[in-house]
């Protein structure tokens, strides 16, 4: 049993990036408390929620009891549904009165990422401050959204509270807030409960991997800055090799140990516990109840019952298709931690090796493209879009040009508005659109930031497209905007990177849906770090490989017509040789293909 359950606070927040096991751990915690006779509410705020799947019951946006677990109730906050409801509250009353194009313009403005965030947080605040709810439940457990999203949710109330005080006129980029301003008292209450160490615990969930731990460290630091200091660390999916002669298994075990040994001083100061890697995905209440029980004994008894279907081809085939054009934009997209940097670097190195001129660029603040390359590569140029630096330069430029003619008051107001969160989006967008055009002459590989950020970029591109169309005097058929480039399948190819695990596939499917809504069709999917595609004889890894099969099948059947698979590597691929090996590596033979 986790020590986390010894003397829990009333509110428990599980945070960590997608795929680390937040939902499983939050749900197992909720069940453990309910089994003690407590009344527990489990809340999902994750836009890619799979709570219903894990609990094997219906979960909805109203509080519902879980039949199999007396005392446990769930609620699923879908941020997009909340945003739709908010939009309808604003637009509904005027729909009949104002002309259709006017109503359309209002709806468009209220369809941005900000509105979704704000509407979701509004729902979240209700749960934290509703007195009836407080009396109806002993514990409220939040299976929160992936880290970046969580941070924005948590940061917003602090930003708003001070914002509303300083700007009584309400003229601000936090525009959609004006519709919710009446609730500032609740926001302040919500922030207070989050900061109360006797009432709230933040459970940072991580895997024993360097990047996941680095992200947990960032989250921990940022939450501390916001005054949320009652934190704990749970390392989920700790792997122990069962077949000591298996090179992949022993390398993975060693890598996990090394990653844990290099943990930051901030994280090592937190109360910490470990949950072992399970052979199968944790689905159903029985599996959830056993998650915190004795160490895994469920592994060695494993028989390969998977069908002998062929796995998708390697990355090489995709690169062949892309190289044919000789120029164009290659966008590598996906959630943080799925290996975008490695895939982008491998693709870029391979294209450069075929004699093409390649620019590899990144907007991912966490990416270390240079690290992955391990040195100079002929034909390959590397550049980086640093969001902070871009923002600084953008603000400077705006103040120097647009702010030049203003009096002191005007300049002050402009500076104030430039401190808004939108500024970074716009600044990054400018850098992004410069790069989009460079792909007319050469191959540009862009290793983009995690999904949320990526969509913000696209959102900004979309807004720009509409603005240009609305205000330009150039004939419409002669304008080429970045959004048009992104929509042109001859010009832009989008590679969606995912891992063969439940949440990452859900998240990737969601990203694809968002792209399609923006009129962009992804070129291919890349299933990265596949154990099914790797060579192993370790029983636990073989069990995980079998668990990957239905997911790979689902990607093939429902999600993409063009898929490449990249096997899990014993060592992270660093340097051109290893990166190229990733592209060319043949599929393992007999065991899976024959």
């Amino acid at each position, binding site marked *: 049993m986790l020590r986390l359950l010894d003397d829990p606070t009333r509110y428990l927040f599980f945070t960590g990036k997608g795929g680390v096991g937040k939902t499983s751990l939050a749900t197992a915690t909720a069940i453990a408390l309910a089994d003690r006779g407590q009344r527990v509410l489990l809340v999902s705020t994750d836009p890619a929620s799979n709570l219903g799947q894990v609990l094997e019951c219906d979960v909805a946006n109203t509080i519902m009891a879980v039949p199999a677990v007396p005392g446990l109730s769930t609620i699923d906050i879908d941020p997009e549904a909340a945003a739709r409801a908010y939009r309808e509250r604003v637009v509904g009353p005027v729909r009949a009165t104002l002309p259709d194009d006017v109503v359309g313009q209002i709806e468009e403005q209220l369809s941005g990422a900000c509105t979704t965030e704000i509407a979701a947080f509004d729902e979240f605040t209700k749960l934290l401050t509703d007195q009836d709810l407080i009396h109806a439940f002993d514990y409220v457990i939040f299976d929160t959204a992936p880290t970046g999203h969580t941070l924005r949710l948590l940061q917003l109330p602090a930003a708003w509270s001070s914002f509303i005080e300083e700007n009584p006129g309400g003229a601000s980029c936090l525009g959609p807030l004006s519709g919710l301003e009446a609730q500032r008292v609740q926001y302040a209450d919500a922030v207070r409960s989050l900061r109360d160490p006797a009432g709230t615990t933040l459970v940072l969930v991580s895997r024993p991997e360097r990047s996941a731990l680095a992200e947990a460290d960032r989250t921990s630091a940022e939450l501390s800055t916001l005054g949320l200091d009652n934190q704990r660390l749970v390392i989920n999916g700790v792997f122990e090799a069962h077949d000591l002669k298996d090179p992949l298994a022993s390398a993975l075990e060693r890598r996990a140990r090394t990653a844990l040994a290099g943990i930051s001083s901030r994280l090592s100061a937190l109360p910490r516990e470990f949950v072992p890697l399970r052979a199968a995905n944790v689905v159903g209440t029985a599996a959830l109840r056993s998650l915190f029980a004795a160490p895994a004994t469920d592994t060695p008894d494993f028989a390969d019952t998977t069908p002998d279907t062929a796995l998708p081809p390697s990355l090489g085939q995709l690169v062949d298709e892309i190289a044919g054009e000789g120029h164009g934009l290659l966008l590598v997209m996906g959630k943080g931690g799925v290996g975008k940097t490695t895939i982008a670097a491998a693709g870029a190195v391979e294209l450069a090796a075929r004699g093409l001129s390649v620019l590899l660029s990144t907007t991912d603040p966490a990416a270390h493209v240079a690290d992955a390359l391990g040195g100079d590569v002929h034909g390959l140029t590397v550049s980086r879009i640093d969001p902070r630096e871009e923002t600084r330069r953008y603000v400077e430029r705006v103040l120097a040009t647009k702010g030049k003619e203003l009096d002191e*008051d005007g300049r002050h107001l402009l500076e104030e508005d430039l401190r808004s969160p939108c500024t970074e989006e716009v600044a990054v967008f400018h850098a992004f659109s410069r790069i989009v055009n460079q792909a007319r002459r050469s191959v540009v590989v862009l290793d983009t930031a995690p999904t949320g950020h990526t969509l913000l970029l696209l959102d900004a591109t979309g807004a720009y497209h509409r603005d240009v169309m609305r205000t330009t005097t150039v004939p419409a058929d002669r304008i080429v905007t970045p959004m048009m480039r992104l929509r042109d399948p001859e010009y832009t190819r989008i590679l969606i990177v995912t891992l063969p695990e439940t949440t990452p596939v859900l998240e990737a499917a969601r990203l694809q849906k968002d792209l399609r809504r923006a009129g962009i069709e992804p070129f291919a999917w890349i299933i990265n770090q596949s154990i099914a595609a790797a060579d192993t004889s370790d029983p636990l890894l073989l069990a995980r490989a079998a668990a990957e099969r239905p997911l790979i099948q689902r990607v093939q059947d429902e999600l993409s017509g063009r898929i490449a698979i990249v096997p899990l590597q014993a060592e992270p691929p660093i340097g051109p040789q290893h990166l190229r090996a990733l592209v060319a590596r043949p599929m393992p033979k007999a065991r899976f293909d024959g």
Partner: protein
Amino acid sequence: MRLDVFDPAMCCSSGVCGADVDASLVQFAADVKWLLTRGVAVQRYNLSQQPGAFASTGIVRQTLQADGVECLPLGLLDGRVVFRGQYPSRQELQHLMKLEGVS
């Protein structure tokens, strides 16, 4: 004296969150501050945030129905249209104030 400004749908009044900063929006935001110091009551309505104000103000609703969103921004001085389609300059505002007897 009261100036009501009906802005197009935008997320903030200086326009810094657009794809490019619109200098006239920045200037107008500063001009509004200046008007306030002259004792003019200025109220701005953003189409995407307060559409109700557009629907319930007769002249604004009618203009929108006749000409669409191109008529925005629309400025009403004590209920009378004094500018439409673009923001006035500081000079034009000064001129307007002089006509109304504001120093």
